């Protein structure tokens, strides 16, 4: 009798696995790079380089190895998991960049509601719209999106309500978004210690920045809860047909800057920002994006209040023709501070030019050049020049396969 029950249970499990695997959408990709760079060491190596790969990284590198799985759970829920290997400098080689449950009831009477719970990106980027929060225009993200990739993530709940005007005879859709989150009390460490960078490395949910024992980041963990106070954001989105998207978001992690973690004694960073962006797409493969982000981050150890206001903006122009995509982007970024000796102050701009060629659904080739010119007080303190120009060239080959890639 017992054996029969075991057999039945085994059969049921096998049936469930078979059923699940049929419905599961998955994607696997490997992105390798040939890099030549004259940049300072990257933040993961304890340096203040403004790009992902420093001069020591020149040669063959792993861009990203990625596994993504989407599993429908019943009719209206689904679970998403995005795991990646970027390099071997993090605590563990494989990390999860996003993992969340998604609730999407059917739209009713012209309105659509969506709810996400887990770890994911807040709705800021207009550039990173490809699978795995990647940009279809360039390899390296803008300074704004690089910062989000490094130390901003919603670990909590996000609700979105949209009025679907385009489905009811109008030219516009309008949406409001609200998020409540924890475990992001360390957002701001990177911008105040290293400043803005242009990278495509996304910190995993249990990842760290830099290396333990190496200043300035000292292996900081951006996704920590210190003061047990939830952060929040609210945003608006307007769309004109499928041609233009305007997105505005106000974010405040509501961290108490006087608090420190009881175990590691690291401080909570109160980080607030506003972002606004517009993406316009036209016939013949043209895309233009402009985005601005401004905010500040504060710590208040021992009755001192140290504050770093920061701003970043970029303009991107891209043209797609057949399987080719040519893009150019100009970034500007700056960090000011009231800290002693202007610790963390930075000012810079960057040019990025990229050519992407999609051979088919599986193979993508890319060539990109990023040139960053920046002044950095911290770099000068480390014995570097006050003003530096860093150039990084990357040749990328990516192979992807998956349930929807044919």
């Amino acid at each position, binding site marked *: 009798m017992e054996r029969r029950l075991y057999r039945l249970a085994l059969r049921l499990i096998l049936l469930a696995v078979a059923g699940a695997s049929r*419905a599961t*959408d998955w994607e696997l990709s490997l992105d390798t790079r040939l890099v030549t760079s004259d940049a300072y060491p990257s933040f993961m190596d304890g340096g203040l380089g403004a790009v992902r790969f420093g001069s020591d990284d020149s040669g063959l590198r792993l861009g990203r190895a990625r596994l993504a799985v989407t599993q*429908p759970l019943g*009719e209206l829920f689904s679970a998403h998991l995005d795991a990646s290997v970027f390099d071997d400098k993090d605590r563990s080689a494989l990390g999860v960049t996003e993992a969340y449950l998604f609730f*999407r009831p*059917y*739209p*009713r*009477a*012209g309105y659509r509601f969506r709810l996400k719970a887990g770890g994911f990106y807040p709705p800021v980027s207009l550039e990173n*719209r*490809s*699978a795995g929060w990647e940009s*279809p225009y360039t390899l390296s993200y803008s300074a704004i999106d690089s910062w989000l990739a490094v130390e901003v993530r919603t670990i909590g709940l996000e609700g979105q309500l949209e009025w679907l005007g*385009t*489905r*009811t*005879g109008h*030219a516009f859709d309008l949406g409001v978004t609200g998020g409540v989150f924890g475990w992001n009390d360390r957002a701001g460490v990177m911008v105040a210690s290293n400043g803005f960078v242009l990278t495509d490395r996304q910190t995993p949910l249990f990842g760290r920045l830099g290396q333990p024992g190496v200043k300035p980041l000292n292996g900081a963990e951006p996704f920590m809860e210190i003061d047990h106070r939830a952060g929040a954001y609210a945003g608006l989105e307007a769309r004109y*047909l*499928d*041609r233009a998207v305007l997105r505005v978001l106000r974010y405040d992690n509501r961290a108490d800057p006087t608090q420190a973690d009881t175990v590691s004694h690291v401080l909570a960073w109160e980080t607030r920002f506003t972002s606004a962006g517009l993406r316009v*797409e036209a*016939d013949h*493969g043209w895309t233009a994006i402009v985005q601005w982000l401004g905010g500040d981050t504060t710590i208040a150890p021992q009755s001192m209040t140290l504050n770093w206001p920061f701003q970043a903006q970029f303009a991107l122009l891209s043209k*797609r023709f057949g399987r080719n995509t040519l893009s150019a982007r100009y970034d500007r970024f700056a960090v000011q501070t009231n800290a002693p000796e202007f610790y963390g102050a930075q000012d810079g701009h960057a040019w990025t030019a990229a050519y992407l060629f*999609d051979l088919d659904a599986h193979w993508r080739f890319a060539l990109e050049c990023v040139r960053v010119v920046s002044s950095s007080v911290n770099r000068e303190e480390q014995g570097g020049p006050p003003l530096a120009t860093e150039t990084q060239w990357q040749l990328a080959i990516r192979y992807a396969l998956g*349930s*929807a890639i*044919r």
Partner: protein
Amino acid sequence: MRPPARASRSRSAAAAAGALLALAALFAAARPAAAATLVVSVQTPDGHALPGAVVTVRPLEGSPRHAAPVHVVMDQVNRSFAPDLLVIPVGSTVEFPNSDSVSHQIYSFSSAKRFQLPLYRGKPYPPVHFDQPGVITLGCNIHDEMLAYLLVTDAPWYGRTSEGGSWSAEVPHGHYRVELWHPRLRDNEVDLRRELTVADADRAELTLRLSRPPQPAPLTDRPHSWDY
């Protein structure tokens, strides 16, 4: 016995006339003698032809007529509906197979027909019956960019303008209302409606020039993997 013979001749003449009349009536039923070709042309404000606009024609007098229901297929290929617009008479059925390797979840919240086809691939659902006239907007709850329209009409004559911007139909002489619809038109409904009399000619023409340019067509060359 001539009179009877005469009577017999007149009877046979009457029978022949009756047969002729019946034939004429039959002919009239098949193709009315008093019919004409109605040609409707649609132009943008700058005079260019507008292809794909839906034209419906209803008689304003006589007993109401309807077109016979049809059975059609709207497929899903490469995360798009194919075709993305169908005009069907009231009472028609539409099948929504999914030819993609990914699942779709089709819905309509339009008042003319609310329905949902939960997550599926292939052809698991029976055709959907459309018994109310109106515009039905279709979407996929997984892929928000997917969009298609069904126009369910009670008009006896309907169709879409050709590449040259025109549509034509054989209609009996009479008084008609011609209406135009297209998901991208910005003119108001009254401006897209005309009344006309088709009489005393074998061809009637109506040219409708829009007062406002239509909205731009959806972008079609974006990779399907993008999050819109």
